[in-house]
């Protein structure tokens, strides 16, 4: 109750609400009143929301339908698996690249060439190699998340003020101390920026991958609804992806703030 009251008094909350309302108004208006054919093919927000909350949905997908959650679970499973693989491989690799000049020389040219390959261009090869859609979709998501993680981690290590290394050497730190007390915490802000981008990229690639090579998942749902011209279901799928993306990046931000309390408190003093 108290939180609700506090929310009611919060200006930012009302601004946010106004933003949403404005968006829905423009959406509704353009579908209902703009006499142009392209807008006429859009479902209006009322139609989408009533379908979404309908116990007996016209096109088969709403919050009361089990299949809806299967799609969500499949997509979440794929995106998070890809994300954690990228985290487990990308962060150590990025740190290694920042730690050892030689290793960076080996890896950076290769990464620079592989990274610009659009994720979807990997799909056919991934399906052939991994024999099937499931692993291929995860692989493609992993790939984009991995590049974002490695590059940002590497940039993070590079951005650490050389004075911090000098001070550590001066106080007699070993290479291991430098790694755990200087490199990792020093690169953490960039690592978390990278992880946010990686999570976003994973969702991005996921939707595209599922459209091509999956039997379940929100991307698949959107594509199937498109084939059957079930426009409200398309929008439900899109909105669900948006919500999941927001939640996952909020979780990463939360973990990041927890791990980087020093940053939060400094900012707290300054603002």
């Amino acid at each position, binding site marked *: 109750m108290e939180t609700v009251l506090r929310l009611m008094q919060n200006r930012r909350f009302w601004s946010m609400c106004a933003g949403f309302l404005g968006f829905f108004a423009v959406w509704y208006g353009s579908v209902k009143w703009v006499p142009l054919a392209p807008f006429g093919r859009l479902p209006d927000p009322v139609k989408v929301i009533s379908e979404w909350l309908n116990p007996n949905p016209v096109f088969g997908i709403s919050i009361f339908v089990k299949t809806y959650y299967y799609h969500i679970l499949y997509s979440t499973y794929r995106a998070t698996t890809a994300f954690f693989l990228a985290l487990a491989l990308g962060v150590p690799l990025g740190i290694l690249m920042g730690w050892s000049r030689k290793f960076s020389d080996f890896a950076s040219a290769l990464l620079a060439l592989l990274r610009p390959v659009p994720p979807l261009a990997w799909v056919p090869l991934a399906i052939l190699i991994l024999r099937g859609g499931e692993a291929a979709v995860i692989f493609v998501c992993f790939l984009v998340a991995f590049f974002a993680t490695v590059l940002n981690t590497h940039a993070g290590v590079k951005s650490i*003020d050389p*004075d*911090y290394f*000098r*001070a*550590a*050497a*001066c*106080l*007699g*730190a*070993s290479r291991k*101390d430098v790694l755990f*007390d*200087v490199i990792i*915490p*020093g690169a*953490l802000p960039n690592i978390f920026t990278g992880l946010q981008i990686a999570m976003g990229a994973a969702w991005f690639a996921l939707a595209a991958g599922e459209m091509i090579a999956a039997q379940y998942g929100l991307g698949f749902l959107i594509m199937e609804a498109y084939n059957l011209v079930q426009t409200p279901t398309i929008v439900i799928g899109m909105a669900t992806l948006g919500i999941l993306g927001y939640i996952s990046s909020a979780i990463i931000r939360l973990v990041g703030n927890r791990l*980087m*309390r*020093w*940053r939060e*408190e*400094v900012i707290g*003093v*300054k603002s």
Partner: protein
Amino acid sequence: MRKWYHRKRQPPVHVLENCSFAIDPGKLTVLMGMSGCGKSTLAYLLAGYISPDQGTLTIDGAPITGPGPDRITVFQETALWPWMTVMDNVTFGPMALKSLPEAQARSKAEALLIKFGLIDFRDKYPGQLSGGMKRRAELAQALINSPRIMILDEPFRGLDVMTRELMQEYYMGLFEETRLTTLFITSELEEAIFLADRLLVMGGTPSRVVKTVEVDLPHPRTFEVLTGERYLEIKKELMEELYRDEAVAAVVVQ
């Protein structure tokens, strides 16, 4: 104890040439010179981050080959790690070297923090401290290792005048108490004279130590010495030396 520098050649910039001096144990030696004259290069050399192209640096006859905890350097920019609390920053040295068990390191750090007036801030992060507090925390971080030599490279640079003067007086008291062999690098004439037992003036391009002044102002030293006659004498002597260089440069420019 003697330390010697001879010639540091660093193509294309020739920083130090025929630069040689000694730092006596238990004394506060101040190295003074205008910015860009190679003072920081000397600090890096002493710290062991770089090595001279010719000549040697020795501590008690043993050459310096790399960074080591027997010499602690405090640099111009603050080097407290922003992600560690003041306490963790101060105990970093003993923990890294495993020279003290953790409990002992902490109690030693606490004693230092009390002395530096930072005990209430032990669990704060450097970003939450003021400039002067950071400098004191750095001194604590250095002193906990009981180094044989302290090298301070313009440690009070960037502080406002009042904080700076407070820190000077504070530092003077600390030095008088510990008598830790110190090389203090500065570009401020007043600061140099106030702190020094021996003052080395750097000059010329490439630079070397052009003048050595034994500052015989009495200890314990307070800011009152800055109004004394002896202080003014020393200052005059030094200014003549510094501005002689300047005058030459001015002629060249015209």
